[in-house]
């Protein structure tokens, strides 16, 4: 396939992915809006008003960037894992495998679909948050960079999960038992400064800490970690996850016999 044909194939996958999650918007877009609204009301307004300030900001202002990032992480991951595993489950993935599309185009197509859903949900959740608080943006470029890299990273992780999954249970185990705890312990609701030294050090091993901290720095200008190091870590994870995903597609692991 020449470059233009590859572009057509890429856009076909992206269009298919976007139409898929828009078709089932009540399962893909609405839940995040409702869940985050509840977080804003309960943690931000009701409980947050009694907590006081954190990092020089009201608790509501502090918690909103973390919640937006949580929505991006869960949605970009969920989109790719559900879509690609679904294609594996009903064998429609064979439509792609028998076609001449290079593996990297297939991967980029699915990742772009996951990123687009992550960004769309981020916009929805951000719009909802404006009903509850003002939303300063300290560094728009950093915000865009962190959001994009995070959405790419978790789309890739969702893809890897989908390749190895054999049942629908397998695609919910990682989000439930790995992603959610890491997100909650990744500084979404608190500053790492509040933790005892030991747990603050342990938290450095949680990749979600870098994602949340970097995004919060982009929004508020305050952070728990070194931003250059955080961006470097996210970038490293993206490269590693992309390389491994591509290896899985090229070798046909769990996809071909």
């Amino acid at each position: 396939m020449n470059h233009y044909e590859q572009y057509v194939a890429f856009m076909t996958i992206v269009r298919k992915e976007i139409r898929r999650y828009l078709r089932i918007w009540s399962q893909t877009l609405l839940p995040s809006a409702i869940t985050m609204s509840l977080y804003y009301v309960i943690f931000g307004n009701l409980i947050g008003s009694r907590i006081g300030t954190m990092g020089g900001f009201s608790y509501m202002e502090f918690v909103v960037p973390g919640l937006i990032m949580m929505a991006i992480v869960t949605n970009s991951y969920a989109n790719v894992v559900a879509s690609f595993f679904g294609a594996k489950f009903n064998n429609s993935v064979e439509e792609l495998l028998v076609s001449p599309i290079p593996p990297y185009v297939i991967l980029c197509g699915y990742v772009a679909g996951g990123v687009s859903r992550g960004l769309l949900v981020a916009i929805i959740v951000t719009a909802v948050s404006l009903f509850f608080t003002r939303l300063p943006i300290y560094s728009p470029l950093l915000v865009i960079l962190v959001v994009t890299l995070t959405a790419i990273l978790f789309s890739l992780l969702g893809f890897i999960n989908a390749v190895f999954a054999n049942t629908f249970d397998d695609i919910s185990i990682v989000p439930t038992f790995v992603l959610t705890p890491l997100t909650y312990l990744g500084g979404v609701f608190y500053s790492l400064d509040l933790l005892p030294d030991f747990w603050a050090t342990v938290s450095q091993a949680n990749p979600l800490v870098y994602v949340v901290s970097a995004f919060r720095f982009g929004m508020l200008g305050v952070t728990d970690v070194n931003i250059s190091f955080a961006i470097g870590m996210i970038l490293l994870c993206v490269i590693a996850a992309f390389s491994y995903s591509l290896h899985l597609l090229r070798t046909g692991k769990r996809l071909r016999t």
Partner: protein
Amino acid sequence: MTAALKIEGLEKTYDNGFVALKGIDLTVEPGDFFALLGPNGAGKSTTIGIISSLVAKSAGKVSVHGVDIDQNFPLAKTHLGIVPQEFNFNVFEKVEDILTNQAGYYGIPRIDALRRTEHFLDRLGLTEKRDTRARMLSGGMKRRLMIARALIHSPKLLILDEPTAGVDIEMRRSMYDFLREINAAGTTIILTTHYLEEAEALCRNMAIINNGKIVTNRSIKDLLRDLHKEVFLLDCAGSLDLGLEVPGFELEVLDDHTVQVAIEKGQDLAEVFAALHAKQISVVSMRNEANRLEQMFVNLLEQPA
């Protein structure tokens, strides 16, 4: 002339140790309508899986229109259209979207993809179902959808794995007509089927595969010529005598109007008609007792390996 499909020494051993293919050699010429026959588990679907890249071969070479799949599989894939045995589309997608997406996967720009989709929806009688989710289609329509999808990028070689399984007679006949038409227009077709009469009706050449080996690979006419005995049923006017005999022929009266006659190779059926005519018995109609190809198929599979 470059073969549409050339397979040399193809072997496949699955991870569990099962040897599915034991060195297959097969050549299908351009423009041919070719049947690949064999019992369940013989290796037909494994062969198709390897050609389509869904199964990794253990050894051997495969070329599609001169393109070695080890050298340039993407190019070989552009020449191929595959209709698998099992439905493998997203049942929640609309019929039209399944076709346009498939065209997109082959790098066909959207405007052209929509035009091709329109054409194949019309050709395969699916226009009215274009906005229907695939899961709502009948079994026959799903088969036609898979044929349309396989043809959307105008492949030179179309491989159909049991395309008429579960399809009613009327729809099967219209599918035959369509396949004959695209074959006449130049598309090489390889068909695997359990309906041997289907292979006889459609195909010019055939190979029989059994236990991972090609048992025979010849023209269907040649194969049928080798049959030593054929059994015909003759429907006669008037009442038949149970003791009816024609010297030199194996005859059996089945009921008052039907007689079964076995013709050995070299015998002339006209002698039977003459003998019956002499006995004032006229033959109203005649048919094969069983599918001739089926008999040949059984004979070949029963031969020691």
